């Protein structure tokens, strides 16, 4: 642990680490039971291969389901978008990538996605050029192409996301002092996360690349490799702009490491992942700034960005200038002209829209401003906490809180964006699992799955949804609820609501459905919004707890009580 700073005592790990290995064979949850034979040190080396193969088998089994837009001309879906990007990137000069026929799934992801598409397209063309023939292959659907595309997802996942969570769980459990058996359980939980599996392997997307790069960044931060971490994080941003949900928290964390306040200036230690110790500026007053690290971080971030976008500026072609190319990229990547939300998504705007019709009341610009303000307000607490106390153990919590803030209040949110807070939140299991944490994280993933149900149902992924959710709930024994009465009520209430909506959707025909065709989707949105909002609050609470704030409050109250008691005793004497 860090050398104790005078301001606050080292955190006691009395509640968060409890090893299930000691409890066996009394009553573990099934996931722990599966890993039980591998807990001895002789078999530890089998843990990772076994988990990765099992995870692969289930991931691949999901690919037998339909993908987004399968057999649905004229526009098809996300699968066609990704395939089309492979098609245009391998055939067209870079100058046209962000301009070519924008009505048919024009490229609207940042450059790293384009490079990734180029690579996949090149490899695919070696196998069969028809899959990616320019223009002729629009809406191409064939058995082998489907297998190839699914395989690119799996390979990308296993090259980036899965190594990332393995490395992350190693570093995070090292930070928090989690034992090996619990670490393998945590890895298994991360591998079993149903929402990421079903979106990448069922619906078809490459979220695991973006998330994997982000998780790699976090792992590097934990390992005190701040520059590598920021490089990874920028790459994550350059793969998919959604990684912006994490950005403020990451920024706050890094800034917090560079800026320290007088009273704990000397106490920088490994617990804080301190950067270099070269140039330090001491501003009159209690603030010290580690200028060297700050500048290096800035240079890393900017140069990574520059390297990513430079090819577009250099190879700008004859029609457009370099700046115009970059402007077009930004314009494509951030479509501000779109509405407050797409489809139905369980965030603040869509859920409260039932009562207050924002879009009728306010102009789009005003709405954008309001949503920006609310988002900033929501991400302020986690970011401020990370800035003031940039402890390693707090990192995933802060990132999760920040991502929740974005998901709940920002502009233009997709239902799939819930993956960001969900992955960040699930990462915390690497810091030791207890029943409460397990129930909350398990429940959160179930809520996320349920919130994506309208999308999954449309795409015909009902079987995969049911099996993965069921398996997840069973693996973590989610029938065991958290200890607090309120949480119990919340979890049970949600499950009852979700089941009722599922049953109603199947059984009720006519009547209310004819008048309000979206009634079940709206019900879904409202239910999930309540759950998500509460998860945001829960993350903040757990983060504060982890930071020692809750303990401090109790300590202050406890001390007051103690003093009162002492005085009373004195009087008695």
């Amino acid at each position, binding site marked *: 642990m860090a050398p104790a700073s005078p301001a606050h005592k080292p955190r006691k790990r009395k509640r968060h680490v409890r090893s299930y290995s000691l409890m*066996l*064979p009394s009553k*573990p949850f*099934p996931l722990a*039971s*599966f890993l*039980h*034979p591998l807990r001895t040190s002789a*078999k530890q080396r*089998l843990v990772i*291969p*076994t988990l990765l*193969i*099992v995870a*692969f*088998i*289930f991931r*691949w*089994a*999901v*690919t*037998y*389901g339909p993908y987004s837009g399968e057999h649905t001309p004229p526009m098809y879906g996300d699968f066609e978008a990704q395939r089309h990007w492979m098609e245009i990137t391998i055939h067209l000069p870079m100058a046209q990538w962000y301009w070519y026929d924008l009505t048919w799934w024009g490229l609207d992801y940042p450059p790293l996605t384009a490079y990734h598409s180029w690579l996949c397209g090149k490899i695919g063309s070696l196998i069969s050029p028809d899959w990616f023939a320019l223009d002729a292959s629009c809406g191409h659907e064939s*058995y*082998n192409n*489907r*297998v190839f595309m*699914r*395989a690119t997802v*799996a390979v990308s996942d296993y090259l980036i996301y899965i190594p990332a969570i393995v490395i992350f769980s190693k570093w995070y459990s090292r930070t928090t002092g989690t034992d090996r058996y619990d670490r393998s359980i945590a890895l298994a939980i991360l591998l079993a996360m149903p929402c990421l599996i079903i979106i990448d392997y069922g619906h078809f997307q490459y979220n695991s690349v973006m998330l994997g790069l982000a998780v790699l960044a976090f792992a590097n931060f934990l390992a005190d490799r701040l520059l590598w971490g920021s490089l990874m994080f920028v790459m994550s941003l350059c793969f998919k702009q959604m990684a912006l949900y994490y950005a403020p928290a990451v920024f706050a964390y890094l800034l917090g490491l560079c800026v320290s306040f007088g009273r704990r200036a000397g106490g920088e230690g490994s617990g804080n992942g301190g950067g270099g110790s070269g140039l330090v500026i001491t501003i009159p007053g209690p603030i010290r700034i580690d200028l060297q690290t700050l500048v290096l971080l800035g240079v890393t971030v900017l140069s990574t960005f520059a390297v990513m976008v430079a090819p577009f500026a250099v190879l700008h072609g004859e029609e457009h200038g370099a700046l115009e190319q970059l402007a077009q990229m930004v314009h494509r990547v951030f479509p501000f002209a779109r509405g407050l939300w797409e489809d139905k998504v369980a965030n603040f705007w869509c859920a409260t829209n039932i009562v207050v019709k924002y879009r009728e009341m306010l102009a789009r610009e005003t709405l954008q401003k309001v949503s920006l303000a609310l988002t900033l307000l929501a991400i302020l607490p986690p970011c401020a906490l990370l800035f003031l106390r940039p402890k390693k153990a707090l990192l995933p919590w802060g990132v999760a809180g920040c991502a929740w803030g974005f998901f709940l209040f920002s502009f233009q949110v997709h239902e799939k964006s819930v993956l960001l807070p969900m992955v960040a939140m699930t990462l915390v299991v690497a810091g030791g699992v207890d029943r409460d944490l397990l129930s909350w994280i398990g429940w959160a993933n179930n809520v996320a799955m349920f919130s994506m149900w309208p999308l999954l149902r449309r795409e015909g992924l009902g*079987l*995969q949804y049911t*099996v993965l959710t*069921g*398996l997840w709930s*069973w693996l973590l024994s989610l029938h065991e609820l958290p200890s607090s009465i309120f949480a119990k009520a919340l979890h049970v209430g949600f499950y009852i609501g979700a089941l009722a909506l599922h049953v109603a959707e199947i059984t009720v025909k006519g009547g209310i459905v004819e008048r309000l065709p979206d009634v079940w989707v709206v019900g879904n949105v409202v239910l999930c919004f309540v759950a998500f909002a509460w998860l945001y609050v829960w993350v903040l609470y757990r983060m504060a707890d982890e930071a020692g704030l809750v303990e401090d409050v109790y300590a202050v109250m406890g001390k007051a009580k103690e003093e009162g008691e002492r005085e009373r005793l004195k009087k008695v004497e």
Partner: protein
Amino acid sequence: MEAEHPTFTECLVLATALKLLLIPAYRSTDFEVHRNWLAITHSLPTSKWYIEDTSEWTLDYPPFFAVFEWFLSQFARLFDPGMLVVKNLNYASPQTIYFQRLSVIVSELVLILSLRRFVAIQATPQSKKVAHIIALSLLLSPAFLIIDHIHFQYNGMMFGILIFSLTDALTDNLLRSGVLFAVLLCFKHIYLYIAPAYFAYLLRRYCLGRTLLDIQLANCIKLGGAIVSIFGIAFGYFAAIGQIPQLLTRLFPFSRGLCHAYWAPNAWALYAFADRVLIIVAPRLGLPIDSASLGSATRGLVGDTSFAVLPNIPPRATFVLTLAVQLVCLAKVFLQPSPMRFVGAVTLCGFASFMFGWHVHEKAILLPLVPFSLLALQDRRYLGAFRPLAVAGHISLFPLVFKAAEFPIKSAYTILWVMVFFMTFDTVVPVAKSQRIFFLDRFEIVYMTVGVPLILYTELFHFAIFGSKLEFLPLMFTSSYCALGILGSFLGFFTLYLTS
């Protein structure tokens, strides 16, 4: 009893989740075969069951299986009546797929219960632990996953009945064991291959007393009566309407060739491989080549196989060979009957028929594989003989599921199974009581190291190098490789069986 982790139920839930996800995966023509049988048994009177031939996939399983299909069809009606129309060839609505896949998953309950019983009959905690691992290895076997849940068949249920019968034999519940086996024969006649072992053992242990002349008349009558009445129930009706000859032509189609399209990895595959090699070598040795049959073993579907250099094999030769091998092990079990030796005899009968039988399917590898699993953890020597079979047997099933999308699943699952269970077997298997057999364990290591590059070649590189040319080449390599492993396993186990 102290619970083992993971428990049987936990593995069952995990495996079932995977099987559910595999519902939309590739399915072979056997899916249509069974759909057609659902339709036949549901919509036609019993007297037409074995006559109907609208589809080329006529009913060719014994009557109990037909009744089982009729039973299933009662539920199929609720899913989609369309699948029950005989004329709806290749009908595969989503409801049909769900229903048929689920019927396999549910009927596997028989296997699950039989495995639980196999664990329950063990006397000591140590043997319970070993049996638990064997039960898990069978429950999670890639063989059942590939054949039943991807390719589509009902082997789980069939082998469930067999294991029930074997556990009864292990607990000396011989009458019930015999009855169950008779029932099994009326479900699927492939088990006739192992019937000799049952015959010899039941005759010796149940019908005869301490000496060969000490005939237990009461037992004879009980067993004989029971078996006759079971066959009576199954075939009586068809005998009454004079359809037995028709039934027999359906059940035993002798017009097929020595080897299946893809050679099952048995002695004949090695023979055919040698023949192919000789075609190249023969001109230099001055051997005559039968040019008419050059392409037959590489092209033909379910046609006749003829050899170019080596002499052709008549069906009679395969029977003589099979019976000769079986007789040796029957003599042993007859002279020194013991429950474990009986299971060994069943295994060897399965082995013999697989190795030397006429027109053997690769799926028949289950016949030796399943009973051998029950014996594999006797001691290290048995495990040594078992491992090549476990590897080769599973790999030999790969060509059944040949589509690209299933390659990752079948190989990852098999690798996982081999890795986890070989590791676990090693930790629980007792040390051998007597000397190891020199050859076997060396063979095993070399054999398994060769396997990995071979699979990579046959499944990936061949396609990359040759495209769709020379399609028979990877199949030939796979079957020859597997045949070698199974042969090694067979010889190893045969020696152990005869010397123990």
